[in-house]
């Protein structure tokens, strides 16, 4: 059977690794290429790089980072941040990304998803959604809304209907990132993840809130996620990727154990 995936997310600013807490206060914590290689050799299943600068000079730095990482690892590499057009997506694919992540720009212009799906294939287009808890209103019956620009702007769109629309437009996979849980290390937002996973037929990656291997266990079982994103718990050396996977394996989660 298919294994549940453990994916490390590396936020990159000006070519350096950064980690955000609730999307503000980012700080540099090292060289992304070295980290990527270290995690790959320790059994990581997939990598996500997020460019959190997205100024025009920084884009070229990011392409260089992607190129170097692609030379160092042979697992899937997904890249996001500041993708506004199919050309941006193609540049990243040419640099060595396997998948591209679209986020805010797709909320503002949903056709970006279908354009990318046509150009590079649905399976390579990941729709990353930033989600915040809100009241249950007529616009947001699920109690979860879509926010953009790193959580600064509320869109009044229901998270579940956006997930459905994203799938229809051709996204091959969804990242569900809880703004409320991001950086807290208190665990993933289980009910949100589960609700999205039950709504769509494409794989769902849980994001935001991982602090311990038990949190991954919860979201991959109760939360019905197909994959779990981790960041600070491994970036600061508190856990290694293989420790996380061993723990999941011991708890009966099907994960890739030989690498």
């Amino acid at each position: 059977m298919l294994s549940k995936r453990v994916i490390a997310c590396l936020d990159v600013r000006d070519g350096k690794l950064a980690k955000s807490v609730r999307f503000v206060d980012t700080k540099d914590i090292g060289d992304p290429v070295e980290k990527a290689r270290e995690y790959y050799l320790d059994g990581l299943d997939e990598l996500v790089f997020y460019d959190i600068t997205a100024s025009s000079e920084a884009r070229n730095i990011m392409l260089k980072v992607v190129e170097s990482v692609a030379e160092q690892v042979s697992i899937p590499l997904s890249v996001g941040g500041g993708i506004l057009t199919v050309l941006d997506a193609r540049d990243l694919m040419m640099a060595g990304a396997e998948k591209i992540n679209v986020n805010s720009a797709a909320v503002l212009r949903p056709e970006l998803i279908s354009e990318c799906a046509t150009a590079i294939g649905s399976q390579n287009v990941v729709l990353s959604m930033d989600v915040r808890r809100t009241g249950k209103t007529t616009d947001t019956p699920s109690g979860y809304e879509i926010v953009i620009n790193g959580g600064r702007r509320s869109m009044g769109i229901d998270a579940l209907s956006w997930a459905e629309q994203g799938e229809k437009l051709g996204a091959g996979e969804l990242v569900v990132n809880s703004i409320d849980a991001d950086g807290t290390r208190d665990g993933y937002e289980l009910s949100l993840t589960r609700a999205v996973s039950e709504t769509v037929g494409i794989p769902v990656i849980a994001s935001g809130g991982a602090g311990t291997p038990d949190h991954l266990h919860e979201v991959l079982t109760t939360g019905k996620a197909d994959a779990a994103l981790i960041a600070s718990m491994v970036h600061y050396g508190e856990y290694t990727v293989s420790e996380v996977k061993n723990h999941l394996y011991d708890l009966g989660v099907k994960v890739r154990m030989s690498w």
Partner: protein
Amino acid sequence: MAVIVDYDAGNLRSVQRACSEVGLTAIISDDPEAIRHADRVIFPGVGAAGSAMRSIRKSGVDVALRQAFGSGVPILGICLGLQISLEFSEEDDQTTLGFLPGRVCRFQLRDPELKIPHMGWNAIEVQRAHPLLENIKDGDEFYFVHSFFPEPDDAANIFALAQYERDFCCAAGLDNFFGTQFHPEKSGRVGLGILDRFRNWDGRVA
């Protein structure tokens, strides 16, 4: 010179990079002449069968691939490259190259919890020995991304199975052609091992 066949079907750079990591120098080309003169051919690809077939017919790559197959040059198909090497694909109801008797079918899953595409790492079970599958152990996992799978007519052409609700063929071959449904170029050390063995493969099965 090894040639990676370009037919506008996905990112070939990762295949090229993985080849170079195991010491196999390969050029990316859509030129039928280059494919005819290659001493080994890698036929990768992601995307849909219909547009892939249109593209390779238009460039004449289909004829060059048939000639390469007929001449005994080692050919490695990956993902869509394997699928369109069979005779027919349910995707776009497409007649395909037909090196390998059989067809490509869509996953019809009963369990609503299982997602399509089948995306991620899955173990393979080797069914019969093949030079490219040497050293693969039970439980070794490979990276998959697909919604269709190959179904060769002759069980003798099925070299490995994987399981996703049902068993499906994930490695098939005939003579000098061998194909994997999974992506060796994205499957870490075990995947690079297949490319490394392909580098030295003489195109014979026994």
